[in-house]
């Protein structure tokens, strides 16, 4: 199955619920006040947020020509950021996975691992979530499932030490990819953010330019709080990309538009199902094409 088909499948509901409306709306008539109002409602209900919605509508008003093409273009402009992975010349490629509770960090780590293993890479999963009960077990099960090494200490262990061990292990054994699962933290808790910074620092001691990617996991059902999450995590550990999970429900994930626009953070992966293979690289062009195609 091609990437387009794959995205199409996952986004079917999103499209039906939201963008199909947009399409029929825009194709029907030229932009008048009523249309703009309905468009505002649709964008807000997709969790795009007040500010970004106003921005999009403003842009739409400024442009002549086919409103449908214009909307597509505007969304594309917002989403068109560099989505490539910063893979270093020398392995290991170190990925730090962060996010608030319950967005699917551990699961995303497993799926990310699968993604690299399928490319013939060797993967080390790192259980640096030592806080949530049984998070370590959860990651170990993923390790077995996909055939990755899992580095873990006990519950309540120092996450920095676990991360350091994992990276050292990868360097010593010549492993290709290190994926570090961290504790879900409500970003308002300063200590937890500090802990994250420490992991970031400690990893650098072993591999100078690591972590090469710091991926923030955001759940497609997330509301406006997602923007705050992204902002604070970006300040704390310099987030390089978003993993957008749970896009297979009826939620629209529109907050990522606001994140892309406000913070310039690209979406790098999307999760559209519960299977091991359901995490794929994000392609903004394909994304918008699919969103707006009928």
């Amino acid at each position, binding site marked *: 199955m091609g990437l387009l088909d794959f995205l199409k499948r996952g986004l079917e509901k999103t499209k039906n619920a939201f963008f199909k409306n947009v399409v029929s709306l825009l194709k029907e008539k030229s932009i008048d006040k009523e249309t703009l109002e309905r468009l505002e409602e649709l964008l807000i209900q997709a969790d795009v947020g007040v500010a970004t919605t106003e921005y999009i509508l403003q842009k739409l008003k400024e442009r002549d020509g086919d409103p449908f093409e214009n909307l597509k273009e505007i969304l594309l402009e917002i989403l068109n950021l560099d989505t490539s992975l910063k893979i270093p010349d020398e392995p290991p490629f170190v990925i730090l996975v962060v996010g608030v509770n319950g967005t699917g960090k551990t699961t995303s780590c497993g799926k990310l691992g699968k993604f690299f293993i399928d490319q013939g890479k060797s993967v080390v999963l790192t259980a640096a979530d030592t806080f949530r009960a049984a998070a370590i077990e959860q990651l170990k099960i993923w390790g077995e499932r996909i055939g990755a090494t899992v580095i873990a200490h006990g519950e309540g262990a120092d996450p920095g030490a676990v991360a350091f061990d994992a990276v050292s292990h990868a360097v010593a054994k010549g492993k290709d990819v290190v994926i570090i699962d961290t504790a879900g933290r409500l970003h308002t808790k300063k200590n937890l953010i500090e802990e994250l910074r420490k992991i970031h620092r400690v990893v650098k001691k072993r591999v100078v330019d690591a972590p090469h990617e710091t991926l923030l996991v955001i759940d497609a059902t997330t*509301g406006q709080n997602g923007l705050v999450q992204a902002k604070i995590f970006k300040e704390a550990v310099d987030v390089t990309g978003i993993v957008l999970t749970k896009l297979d429900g009826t939620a629209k994930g529109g907050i990522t538009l606001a994140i892309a626009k406000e913070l310039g953070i690209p979406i790098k992966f999307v999760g559209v199902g519960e299977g091991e293979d359901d995490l794929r690289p994000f392609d903004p062009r394909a994304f918008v094409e699919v969103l707006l195609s009928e």
Partner: protein
Amino acid sequence: MFESLQEKLSRVFRNLAGKGRITEKNVQDAVREVKLSLLEADVNYKVVKEFVDGVLQRALGEEVLKSFTPDQQFIKIVRDELIRIMGERNVPLKLVHRPSPIMLVGLQGSGKTTTCAKLAKYLRKEGRNPVLVAADLYRPAAVEQLVKLGSQIGVEVIHDNNKTPVEVVRYAVERVKDSGKDVMIVDTAGRLHVDEEMMEELDRIKEILNPDEILLVVDAMMGQDAVNMAKTFDERLNLTGFIVTKMDGDARGGVILSIKYVTGKPVKFIGTSEKLDGLEPFHPDRIASRILGMGDVLSLIEKVERELDQEKMKRQAEKFLKAEFTLEDFKEQLQELKKLGLTSVLEMLPGAPKIDVEMSEKELKKIEAIINSMTPEERRNPEIIDASRKRRIAKGSGTTVQDVNKLLKTYEEMKTLMKRMKKGKFRIPFAF
């Protein structure tokens, strides 16, 4: 909780406060601001529409009450409308059977497993004897998580990795029947409301359990889709209510304002901390006050009553009044305060100063360390602490002599206060 909404609304009210009277123009402006802040807070678009229509109608139709200023009137209207939408009073659990089955359902990652443990802990405090059932056999290690949480709070967890969820529930019902346990909390796997197969599983579990309560666990960070999800679950399972989790982040919590209105089912609890006692009954009227920056003293008093050692508090209050309060007592009070959680106390106080909580928590730790480094004699008679003793205490507690001085000075001030109280010039608001 609700900080940013509160902040935005208070700006709206301040703007109105400058106006002499309510006019259509300034109400329109205020209502627009309220609308935007609610949307920013993830309140569902349709609910916001209903809400602002209600406010607008009343604000423009209302007879101008002379005793109120425009902002007071407007606040009252907003508060009434908030309560109309959220419901008025707390709706408690209805546990009729014995044992009474409670079923928790929800999306992945909403916090069901943790909430199950919190609910068990809460019910035990209420004098119940609960048991937990691990029926999430899909997420790797979910069972282990519940077992661990169960052992942390000392509640038995019924589990069997070799059974299907439906079988586990059937087995649990049999086992609990005559066991003396009076509540049975079932943790189910997270699932999408559009996943037909998984929803059928819930139908079957519900049939076996015949639950007194089916609660949907909802993440406070959820956006506009929350109401669709809640509606689908409700139509399928006929929910009895909601538990909204993760209210301690700066989640907007708009979902709280939306789901009751859309489904007609009440929010029964909110999760307010990662710790296992972070589950509170939801009181719409109090939350409305909190959103409007009026504080929530009632919840605070209840929390104090629930969590603190009443006897100890009474003893200390008496000592306080007799001006016999020593540094030893001071330390005990600090420990009690820590139990409550400084953040939650400050949040519930009306007009509480915006202080840096983490700084204050550090400060508390420091004070504790200093007192810990004193001899019992010094704690009873701080007057004997001379320069050399100060140096020793500072060293022992890892602080500086200045820190020790500061603490002693605070203590002296408190003592003066006590003496004045003894003379009847003050009444104590709280024991601390």
